[in-house]
């Protein structure tokens, strides 16, 4: 009964999304105020219905209704309740329902927070978001209905959630990621609405910026959580594999990063307008491409859902419609957009353009590496894959270039800077980065390594150039405190975001070059020396969890003085329902290093294959990502995005411009 209510709610939501896609848009064309005003109640209804559907599915999980196929495949009566709830998005159908719910949530947010925008624009934006929801919900209803029943032969118990997904990281990773993916639909809708209206200006960029930034922050956290999860849950101790599905989330992130910077230029200086629109389209298209890659089953990947080709065809058709339609509109409208302002070579505009070029090149190369295997198979039938070395060959270099540009970019003036003056500002930061970077890079016991040196120099360069900029901003203030208070939240957000980037680089470089790892056979009493620590294998014993049995190893870690640093208890779990083995790594976390131990297979006579890692500074990678996301949140909280009244008074004029466009 409850499942049918959920199913019915999705059908109703589909109908509402059709109305939402058509009526406000028609209203904006035919100047029907009432039709345009329908956008908001429709958005509320859409979200409400999908929430009902989502809660219904959750209820089916919580009450172990195994007559629902999706529940039977992904849950079990023994599964702990929190995992029953998170199992809603544990596989394809339910996770897509979550996707649709979030799309409706963003639509609702636009309807609620856009009171101050011109009515025509809001109507169009909501209609375009409605059109996206039509596509998503059609996909959900016709190819991936999570409410399908297994009647009359309902199983007694379910097949259980994949043990890999029975984990805290996986409870929050997909929602964050989808918030980011779907969030980019808002800036996409703004861009399309602006193209339709023929008005691309600073105001459009100002409205789009907070939406882009907040979606980007979600995506940042989502990717970081995914990386963290892979690190501790897959039992390999790696944090990034250049897996096609990782790339699928990383490409929209890179494009979204470019978009945020390009929007800044469009808002402040009114240039790069058509480029910004193009980036908005590209970012959302890459999000959809990501969905296609993950859900169509065309890829060999850790994450790929095993699915039927019908779904792939559907998403591909939707993708082509979105990309084709928006690019066609872009081709028709963009040439009419003119930028009148000029800027010189040494200006913030140029530096942000270079930022965009670097990010676009990185995205394009990742796209090639990700799609080439598919293309090659379609064209010549040969099956191949592109290995991580391909990505590692160009990506670090591009990021170093980005980091170097960043330092100049935050100091340089809009429009024009004199080169000598710029050099005058930055020489101390440059000198400091070189000196400190060199000093720190020789300090480590492993000796001087070129990549570490480069990494440390660019990290310190980012930090010092930010300080230089802050110093310049405060120089003429009467007191430090007053000066700091005068600076805007978005200014702090920017610097925080850049610091996050620097911390992330630091983590990546140090963990790549200062980590040590060893896979070996260990019998009880065996010892291993690694990075100045002694790992002693104490043996294993049987333990029992709620829905699994496990062999639990004990590994004592002692330092050079013989003091016990920690005891680690890695597990090898056998889940009862799926009969599958799972490695549960044991980690002693720390900012400067993680000690990471995982059990391989039993080798007889109490001996085990054991994986021991010393991961230097690995946590900085995720910490950096969190700091970046926090920077995004700070930027969005800036009060200039909340200056309602000022904008409202402009509405009248804005609207007249729109209706003539």
């Amino acid at each position, binding site marked *: 009964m409850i499942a049918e209510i959920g199913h019915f709610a999705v059908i109703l939501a589909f109908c509402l999304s059709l109305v939402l896609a058509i009526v406000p848009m028609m209203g904006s064309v035919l100047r029907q105020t009432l039709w345009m005003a329908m956008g908001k109640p429709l958005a509320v209804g859409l979200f409400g219905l999908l929430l009902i559907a989502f809660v219904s599915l959750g209820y089916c999980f919580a009450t172990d209704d195994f007559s629902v196929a999706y529940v039977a495949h992904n849950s079990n009566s023994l599964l702990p309740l929190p995992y029953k709830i998170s199992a809603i998005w544990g596989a394809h159908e339910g996770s897509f329902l979550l996707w649709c719910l979030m799309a409706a949530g963003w639509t609702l947010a636009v309807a609620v927070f856009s009171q101050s925008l011109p009515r025509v624009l809001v109507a169009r934006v909501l209609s375009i978001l409605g059109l996206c929801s039509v596509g998503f919900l059609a996909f959900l209803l016709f190819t991936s209905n999570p409410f399908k029943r297994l009647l009359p032969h309902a199983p007694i118990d379910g097949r259980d959630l*994949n043990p890999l997904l029975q984990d805290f990281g996986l409870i929050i990773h997909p929602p964050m990621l989808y918030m980011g993916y779907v969030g980019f639909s808002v800036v996409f809708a703004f861009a399309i609405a602006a193209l339709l209206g023929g008005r691309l200006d600073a105001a459009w960029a100002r409205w789009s910026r907070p939406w882009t930034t907040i979606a980007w922050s979600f995506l940042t956290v989502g990717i970081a959580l995914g990386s963290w999860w892979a690190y501790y849950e897959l039992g390999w101790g790696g944090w990034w594999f250049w897996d096609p599905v990782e790339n699928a989330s990383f490409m929209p992130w890179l494009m979204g990063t470019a978009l945020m910077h390009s929007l800044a230029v469009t808002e402040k200086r009114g240039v790069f307008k058509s480029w910004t629109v193009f980036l908005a389209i590209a970012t959302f298209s890459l999000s959809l491409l990501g969905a296609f890659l993950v859900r169509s*089953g065309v890829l060999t990947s*850790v994450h790929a859902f095993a699915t039927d080709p019908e779904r792939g065809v559907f998403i591909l058709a939707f993708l082509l419609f979105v990309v084709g339609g928006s690019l066609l509109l872009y081709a028709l409208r963009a040439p009419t957009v003119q930028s009148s302002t000029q800027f010189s070579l040494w200006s913030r505009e140029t530096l942000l353009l270079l930022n965009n070029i670097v990010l676009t090149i990185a995205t394009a190369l990742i796209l090639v590496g990700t799609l080439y295997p598919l293309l090659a198979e379609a064209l010549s039938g040969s099956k191949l*894959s*592109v*290995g991580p070395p391909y990505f590692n060959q160009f990506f670090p270099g591009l990021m170093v270039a980005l980091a170097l540009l960043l330092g100049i970019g935050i100091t340089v003036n809009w429009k024009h800077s004199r080169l000598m003056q710029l050099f005058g500002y930055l020489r101390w930061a440059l000198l400091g980065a070189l000196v400190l970077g060199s000093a720190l890079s020789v300090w480590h016991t492993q000796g001087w390594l070129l990549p570490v040196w480069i990494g440390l120099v660019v990290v310190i360069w980012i930090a010092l150039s930010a300080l230089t900029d802050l110093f310049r901003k405060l120089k003429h203030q009467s007191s430090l405190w007053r000066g700091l208070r005068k600076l805007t939240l978005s200014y702090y957000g920017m610097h925080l975001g850049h610091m996050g980037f620097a911390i992330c680089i630091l983590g990546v470089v140090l963990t790549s070059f200062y980590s040590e790892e060893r*896979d070996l056979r260990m019998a009880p009493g065996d010892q291993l020396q690694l990075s100045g620590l002694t790992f002693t294998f104490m043996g294993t014993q049987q333990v029992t969890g709620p829905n699994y049995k496990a062999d639990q190893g004990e590994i004592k870690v002692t330092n050079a003085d013989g003091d016990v640093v920690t005891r680690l208890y890695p597990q090898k779990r056998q889940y009862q329902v799926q009969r599958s083995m799972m490695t549960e790594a044991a980690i002693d976390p720390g900012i400067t290093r993680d000690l990471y131990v995982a059990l391989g297979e039993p080798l007889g006579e109490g001996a085990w294959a054991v994986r021991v890692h010393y991961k230097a500074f690995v946590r900085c990678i995720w910490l950096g990502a969190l700091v970046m996301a926090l920077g995004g949140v700070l930027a969005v909280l800036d009060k200039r995005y909340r200056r309602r009244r000022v904008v409202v008074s402009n509405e009248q004029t804005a609207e007249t411009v729109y209706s003539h466009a």
Partner: protein
Amino acid sequence: MNPVRKNRLRIVLYIVFGSSLAAVLGLMALDENMNYFYSPVELAAGKAPVDKTIRGGGLVVVGSHQRDTQSLANTFSITDGQAIIKVHYTGILPDLFREGQGVIAVGKLNASGELIADQVLAKHDENYMPPEVEGALKQAGHPDYSSSSSPATVTN
């Protein structure tokens, strides 16, 4: 040419130069790092290059997995129902590695036609078969795969 145009031209030239350089370097890197997939039949027929990183995949032959008692060295064989290829791998096998299960081994062929793997992939969902392996099995006319597309039967 007026200074604004000149400036613009310079920027455009930078962009063109930069992106072509990136494209060339990218394609070179791509060419070096492509790993082709070969089925056991193709490997046995000598279609794969020796000493270049390739991917070989098939079902692990039941009873073929042997493990050294004092180190992490493993040997096992993979098959598509027609040919059998021996794989050497030193390290920790993935959790879902099992005899009868579809796996992909990434590594190089040695002179005697055996695959020296430095990575073995088994999927994390046991109902999921790597598409390459499934294709290879179908092509070789493996009994479980000749018509059905459902790989779930293999593990049982």
